[in-house]
C-alpha cells in the first residue's frame, strides 16, 4: 500500500482533545554523579566496575592476563591501551563473523549512567558492532568524567551525540546478556557476553 493511502486511513473525523506535547521532562533529582552508585547498580545487573587503585591501566592489564583469550580491542580502544599487552586489533567492521571466536572484547563507551548502570556504545566508538554481542566476555572503557547521575540527562546527551554525528547505532548496555525465561531463574549469558567489566579511564 502506498504511503498517502495508508496515512489516509488514520485521518480522523472526530479530532479528540488535540493533546499538546508536555515538553521536555525535567528530572527531579539533583544528585551528583557518583561512580560508587554506578558500581552498586552494575552489581545488581550482573556486571562489575574495575577498581583502579593502582591506576586503571594496571587493572586492565590484570583482566587481560587473567583472561583465557583471545583478547581483541576495537579501534577506539587501541590508543588507550598503549603500554598494555596481550591483545590484538579487532580488524574490519565489514566482516562481523570474524569475531566468532573472541574471548574478551575490549570496547570504548561514550558515557555512563549511574541510575541504571548503562554505558553508551555508538557507531563512532564502535563501528565493530557485532563484536559487542559475539565476544564471550566484555571489558568496556568509559571516560571517568563522562558519568551522568540520571537517565533523562543521559538520554538527552545520547540524543545530542546523534545530532552531532548522525550515528547509525547507539546502544545502552547495562550488564551482560541475561534471561529469566526458565521459571524466572536469572541466568547470565543468554546469547551475548557472559560477563561485563566496566573500567573508568582517565582521558
Amino acid at each position, binding site marked *: 500500500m502506498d504511503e498517502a493511502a495508508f496515512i489516509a486511513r488514520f485521518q480522523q473525523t*472526530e479530532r479528540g482533545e488535540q493533546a499538546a*506535547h508536555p515538553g521536555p*521532562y525535567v*528530572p527531579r533529582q539533583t544528585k551528583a554523579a557518583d561512580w560508587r552508585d554506578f558500581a552498586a547498580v552494575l552489581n545488581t545487573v550482573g556486571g562489575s566496575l574495575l577498581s583502579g587503585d593502582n591506576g586503571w591501566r594496571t587493572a586492565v592489564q590484570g583482566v587481560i592476563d587473567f583472561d583465557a583469550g583471545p583478547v581483541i580491542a576495537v579501534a577506539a580502544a587501541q590508543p588507550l591501551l598503549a603500554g598494555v599487552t596481550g591483545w590484538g586489533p579487532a580488524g574490519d567492521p565489514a566482516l562481523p563473523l570474524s569475531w566468532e571466536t573472541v574471548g574478551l572484547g575490549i570496547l570504548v563507551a561514550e558515557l555512563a549512567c549511574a541510575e541504571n548502570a548503562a554505558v553508551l556504545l555508538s557507531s563512532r566508538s564502535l563501528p565493530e558492532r557485532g563484536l559487542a*554481542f559475539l565476544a564471550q566476555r566484555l571489558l568496556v572503557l568509559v571516560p571517568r568524567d563522562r558519568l551522568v547521575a540520571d537517565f*533523562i540527562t543521559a538520554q538527552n546527551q545520547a*540524543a545530542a551525540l546523534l545530532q552531532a554525528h*548522525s550515528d547509525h*547505532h547507539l546502544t545502552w548496555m547495562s550488564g551482560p546478556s541475561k534471561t529469566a525465561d526458565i521459571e524466572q531463574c536469572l541466568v547470565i549469558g543468554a546469547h*551475548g557476553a557472559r560477563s561485563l567489566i566496566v573500567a573508568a579511564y582517565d582521558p
Partner: protein
Amino acid sequence: MSRHAATEAPAFHRQAEKFLIDHARVTWHDQALWHVRKRRDAVKDATPDWEDLREHASRIKAHVLDHLPEFIATFAANARAAGWSVHFAATDSELREMVHGLLTAAGATRVVKSKSMLTEECGLNPYLHERGIDVVDTDLGERIVQLRHEPPSHLVLPAIHLTRADIGATFHQHLGTPVGEIDPPRLVAAARADLRRRFLAAQAGITGVNFAIANTGGIVICTNEGNADLGTALPPLHIACMGVEKIIPTLEDAGVFLRLLARSATGQPITSFTTHLRGPDPNRPEHRGHLVIVDNGRHRLAADLEHRRSLSCIRCGACLNTCPVYRRSSGHAYGTVVPGPIGAVLAPAMIGTAAARELPFASTLCGSCTNVCPVKIDLHEQLLSWRRRLASEHLVPWSKRFAMRVGAWVMSHPRLFAAAGWLARRSWWLVRWRSRINPAWPWLKHRDLPPAPACSFRAAWAKRQQGKDRG
C-alpha cells in the same frame, strides 16, 4: 499454530477451566507472576518521580495518538533519510506478503527473529514456514514455545506457563540435552550453543520495534538477551516490523519511556540492551534495512475516541502480572495474541466485538491494572465501557440480561424488594444445598455461599437506631 485465520476466539471460560484443573500449577503460575509484580513494586518505590514519569509518558502518547497522520508522515520521511526502505502494510496479509517478498528477493531462507508481538498477531512465522523459509525465534522464551508449537502466553515472559521440567523435556527432544536435565543454566547453555550456530548462518534478521523515533527516523529495540542485536549486526538483511502506535516524537522522549518500561516489566532499571538503529550499517556495504509499518485494524481503534488510549500500550506486561484473573487462568485462555487486561481491551476493536465478547468480562474490575500501567491507560474503565458496548450490541448472554432486568425491576420497587428479601432469607438453605450438589453458576464451583442473615439490613438498622435513642 496459525492464529491469523482464527476470527472467533474460543470461549475464555472454557479455556481457563482447562488450566484450572491442575491446582498445583495454578498456584505456581499465580505466585511466579506475583513475584514479578513485587519486583516491579520495589523499583517503583525506589523511583521518587514515578508518578511524574507516568503522567509525562501518558501525555506524550496522547499527543501522538491525536496527531497520528502527521507523525506517520514525519517518521517515514526521517526513516528514509536515515537509510531505511520504508513499506506500509494495511493488513496482516499485506505484512506477510511484504516480508516474504523481501526475503525471496534477497534469496534468504535462513532467518533469525527476535521478539515481536506484531508478527505474532499477523501470523508471519507459519506463513514463512509454509513457503520453505526457516524462521527461528531467538528470544529464549519464544524459542521454547516455538519448539513446542505453542503461542506465547505472556507479553514479555512467553514461557511463563511452563515449568523447568516441561522445558527440560522439550530440549531433550529437540536439542538433545540429557533426559531429566532441568537445570536452568545448563538448559540455557544448550539453547545458546544451538542459536549461536543459527545466528552465524542466518541470511536475514527480523525484529520488532519498541519505539519508533519520529525526529531521528530510528527505531529502539529493547532486549535482555542481546538476540535482537546479534540478529541485526550479523546477517546482511534486517527487516523491522512495527505497528503505527510505536511512534514517539523524539529520542529525548524515549528516555521517559525507557525509565518506565523495564521497571514495569521485570523490575530492572533498564533492559540489558537498548539499541537505537538508523537504517543499514554504513560500515557494512552489503547491509540492507527495511522497515514495515502496519495498520491491521489500528485505524479503527484510533478513530474510537472512547478507546483510543489503549493504543498507548508499550507492552510491558505489568497489567498481566497484577491481574488476579490472568494469574489464575494463564495467557492461552484468552485466545488472543495479547492476553490479560490490555488484551481484553484491545481485542474487541482488533478482532471484533462478537469474537471477543467474553474477554471484557474476564476481569473483577478491581482496577489494579490501571494502577500499575506505566502510561496510565484506564484499563478497568475501558473494560467497563466495552461491556456497555457489548450490551448495546446484544452480545451479552440472555441469562445475564434477564437477571439484570429482573434485578433492576425488583430494586426499583421497595415493597417488592422487601418481600423478595424475606423470601430469600427463608429459602436460602435450599439454594445453598442445591449449589453444593450441582453449581449451576460457575462462580460457585470453587466457592460456598455464605449463610443467610437473620434479618434484613433495614431491620438491623432500625434496631441499632432504637438502641442509640435509649442510650
